[in-house]
């Protein structure tokens, strides 16, 4: 079943048209990774899906409903949650309060604050601490927890590994199968291509706002990905 369907999407990021005519489908229950160089439009895509940047053209259909013009706060209630780039925890709130903000428009489902504490066992001990005092990896975990407690059908994770030590990244990725097993579909933006290829069922590579390569990770060769990622043009050979 197709959970999210994006057609001919154009999104502006300031003056720049960051996403141009993008088509993308996310099947329920899969992990889709979006890779691409800096400035390829990955974050803008996620912000458009979450409702922070409204598209200038095209459509976003989620669960059979057109949500192209629906504001961000209503999308949360509809089942889309974003883990934003840079974590963006509420700095003056405690760890637990940050998680609780995610329950404001909670849908029925398996996730609760207690369940997040089971997923990240270090968290209960530090739940009264200010979110600003956590390390980057801990903040990322809280940000993921905050998104999960709303029980989204689709969780969008922006730059999961950015600025985190590899061992921390591995630990956070270890929880991904649990999240998917509970019925949440994941769309992750990842700069670490190898990491993305390892965890994803399907990969899209963005270049200058367009999807230039997509497929199952096992069907894609390293050379294909490299060419798509860096935009090494094949047109001279295309004349054959």
């Amino acid at each position, binding site marked *: 079943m197709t959970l999210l369907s994006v057609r001919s999407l154009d999104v502006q990021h300031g003056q720049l048209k960051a996403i141009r005519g993008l088509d993308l489908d996310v099947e329920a229950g899969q992990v889709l990774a979006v890779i691409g160089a800096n400035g390829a439009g990955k974050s803008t895509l996620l912000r458009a899906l979450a409702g922070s940047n409204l598209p200038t053209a095209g459509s976003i259909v989620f669960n059979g409903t057109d949500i192209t013009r629906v504001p961000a706060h209503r999308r*949360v209630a509809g089942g889309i949650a974003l883990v934003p780039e840079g974590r963006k925890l509420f700095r003056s*709130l405690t760890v637990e309060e940050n998680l609780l903000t*995610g329950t404001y428009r909670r849908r029925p489902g398996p996730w609760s604050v207690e369940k997040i504490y089971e997923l990240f066992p270090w968290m209960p001990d530090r739940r009264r601490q200010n979110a600003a005092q956590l390390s980057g990896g801990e903040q990322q975990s809280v940000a993921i927890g905050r998104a999960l407690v709303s029980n989204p059908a689709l969780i969008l994770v922006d730059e999961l590994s950015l600025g985190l030590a590899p061992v921390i990244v591995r630990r956070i990725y270890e929880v991904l199968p649990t999240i998917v097993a509970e019925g949440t579909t994941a769309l992750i933006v990842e700069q670490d291509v190898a990491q993305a290829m390892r965890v994803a069922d399907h990969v899209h590579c963005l270049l200058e706002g367009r999807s230039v390569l997509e497929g199952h990770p096992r069907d894609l060769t390293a050379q294909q990905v490299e060419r798509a990622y860096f935009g090494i043009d094949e047109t001279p050979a295309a004349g054959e």
Partner: protein
Amino acid sequence: MDWLNAVVQGLLLGGLYALFATGLSLMFGVMRVVNLAHGDLAVVASFLAVAIISGTGLPLWFVLCVTTPLFALLGYLTQRVLLQRSLSAGPMSTLVVTFGLSIVIQNVLLEVFSADTRTLDGGSFATGSFEISGQLSIPYLSLATFVLAVVVLVAIQLFLSRTGLGRMLRASSDDPDTATLVGADSRHVYGIATAIAFATVALAGVMMAMRSSFDPATGPSRLLFAFEAVVIGGLGSLWGTLLGGMVLGLTQSIGAQIDPALTILGGHLVFLVVLAFRPQGLLPGRTA
């Protein structure tokens, strides 16, 4: 004993200033809106109280129970209809809108109530006091205002820390963009913040009306006291506002004890000293 009296009166006066300043602090903390019409709104509440009491003879507690929810509703609507539009246009335009609102309010009051100076006759409650010792007596009105201020601050504190909506208010204050991503409708959240601000300013306005005289143009000079209390205490901090109000009240009261001409000046001087040496305020807010 005169000095002790001055200290006690000053501290109690601080409660009134805190009650009055809370709304200003809250609106700035949550929306980054400096409401220049804040003082005028208190004057509107003062006039409204005079009109209701002299017109109907209803008791004071009833007037408070009517004006406070009325102002809360008015605040919610003001935010949704007036301020929300200007918020997207940048901080300058909200400043201009509230400045305009201030002028409109003053002129409407002038039109409706004339330029006469008024006071609200609170009867024996406003003038009576109980004696602690020969020279120290505590006026009922000051004590009641102080208690009211503390009750209101505790209530706001509980709302902000214990309820989902209150949590969203704090989250929006930290990072409005991310707050919408976890499901906060910023227009509603801002509406609630403005409603609370207006409700507290209504309470303050009615209490002020019994304490000192007012006319349609009193608002801006009252606003100055609210600004001073907020800045001395620390922007965005509820208990800082109470502390700031008490410091301001104390300074004015001690200044008056030295020389009545020093009353207002003393407050201004402390305000300037805090701005110069501790610009974040005595109890810096979490959002400042």
